[in-house]
């Protein structure tokens, strides 16, 4: 298991508890420092500013993943952001393509693939 100081700081935001807690537990098992939120509005700015990677769902109640991603990027441009979604449309794809800081990952997620992406996005760790 990697040591704590090598841990990648990951924020998981998803209103689906099952997916969120499963992903967070998998990442924690791999030694990462994970914090999880069911509502993007609950994520404190300080947590965003210190995150290496933010994994967010697209469709979440009041504000959607794209709006949240823009907010994260404005607060902390160095953070890599991955948008996970079960709902796949051309609109979402083009919106993501217009944001170089954003990666798209389709649900259901293969954890090993996502984990590889996490390492790729945070190579300095």
């Amino acid at each position, binding site marked *: 298991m990697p040591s704590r100081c090598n841990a990648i700081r990951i924020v998981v935001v998803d209103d689906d508890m099952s997916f969120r807690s499963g992903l967070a537990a998998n990442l924690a098992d791999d030694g990462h420092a994970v914090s999880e939120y069911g509502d993007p509005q609950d994520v404190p700015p300080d947590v965003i500013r210190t995150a290496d990677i933010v994994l967010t769902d697209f469709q979440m109640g009041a504000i959607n993943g794209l709006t949240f991603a823009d907010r994260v990027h404005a607060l902390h441009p160095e953070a890599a952001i991955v948008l996970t979604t079960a709902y796949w449309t051309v609109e979402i794809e083009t919106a993501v393509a217009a944001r170089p800081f954003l990666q798209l990952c389709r649900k259901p*997620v293969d954890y090993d693939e996502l984990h590889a992406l996490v390492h790729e996005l945070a190579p300095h760790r």
Partner: protein
Amino acid sequence: MLQLNEVRWQAILDTARDAIICIDRTGNVSLFNRAAEQIFGYTADDVVGQNVRMLMPEPYRAEHDGYLSNYHTTGVPQAIGRIREVQAQRKGGEIFPIELSVSEARVGDQLLYSAIIRDTSERRAMEVDLAEARRVAEQRERLADIGAITARIVHDLGNPLAGLSMQAQLIQRRVSRDPERPSRDLAAPAERIVAEVRRLDGLIKDFLDFARQQRLDLRTIELPSMLQRLWDLWQPVAAARDITLELAIAPDVPPLTADEDKLRRVLDNLVKNAVEAIDQGPGRVEVRARRAPTDRVRIDVSDSGPGIPESVEMFRLFETTKRDGSGLGLSIAKQIVLAHGGLIGFERHQPNGTTFYVELPVRAVAV
């Protein structure tokens, strides 16, 4: 004076939009007005003095003499004194629908029958067009429903499946990393999988309810006791939210032939929606039942909630104003009510509040 009267009568006959035809007791035509000429395509000269049978298709043509002689011997009228929908035949042979009203008059010792005939072929054609338009609209609505269902399945099943998959991958990875790992580390994800599957199962049941043919189990039900049970169920829920739940049943509400379980489900849904619309009181929900015209019963469920936005189509599949609503409740309610031959709708109140109403025929016939 007499002349003036005749002129006046002629004017009336000429300007009438309906065909007016008089016959004697043997069926011979004595009067054929201008509208009759236009409708049937004959001139008055073609018809006057001829038997009125020439204006009828079979079987009326063959039976007409029989009608007349039957009436003359028994005095039991077939056509006299009421409006009948029958068929007539134009000069070219075209058969068309008419409304026929016949009256009887005695002029001196002469018996005279006069018929007023309205050509209803245009109206019929419009009715057929309307029925066709309605059928197409229903089909379109059905297709829209299927589209909505597909989008909803992708959306509603995609997320839980992603959750299930992630929890299962968690178990898999924990087991493969350390086969001796204590089972309590696996209990939480396993429980989540079970709970998630249960949630999906509920969703599938809702879909099935919607998709299933509404076959009705019709019985005579006593509305008052049924509504009382509904009140008993919801009163504590309403009271906990500071909402007054009122029940008013008019004494003339007749027993109803309906599917009790399904009707119960409709009313349950309406009361639940009313309570949830208010959310937190003080507020008021009223359930009223009364007899409505033409052998129907009307049940109103009114709430003092904030009302429904104009943009919302409440009975549309998946339409919901609730954060966690499935948007199936009212769609299912509508299906059930329509299957009873009834109707369901709502009225907005100013400045706030909504009444949902259900009107059911006293004797539902399974459709």
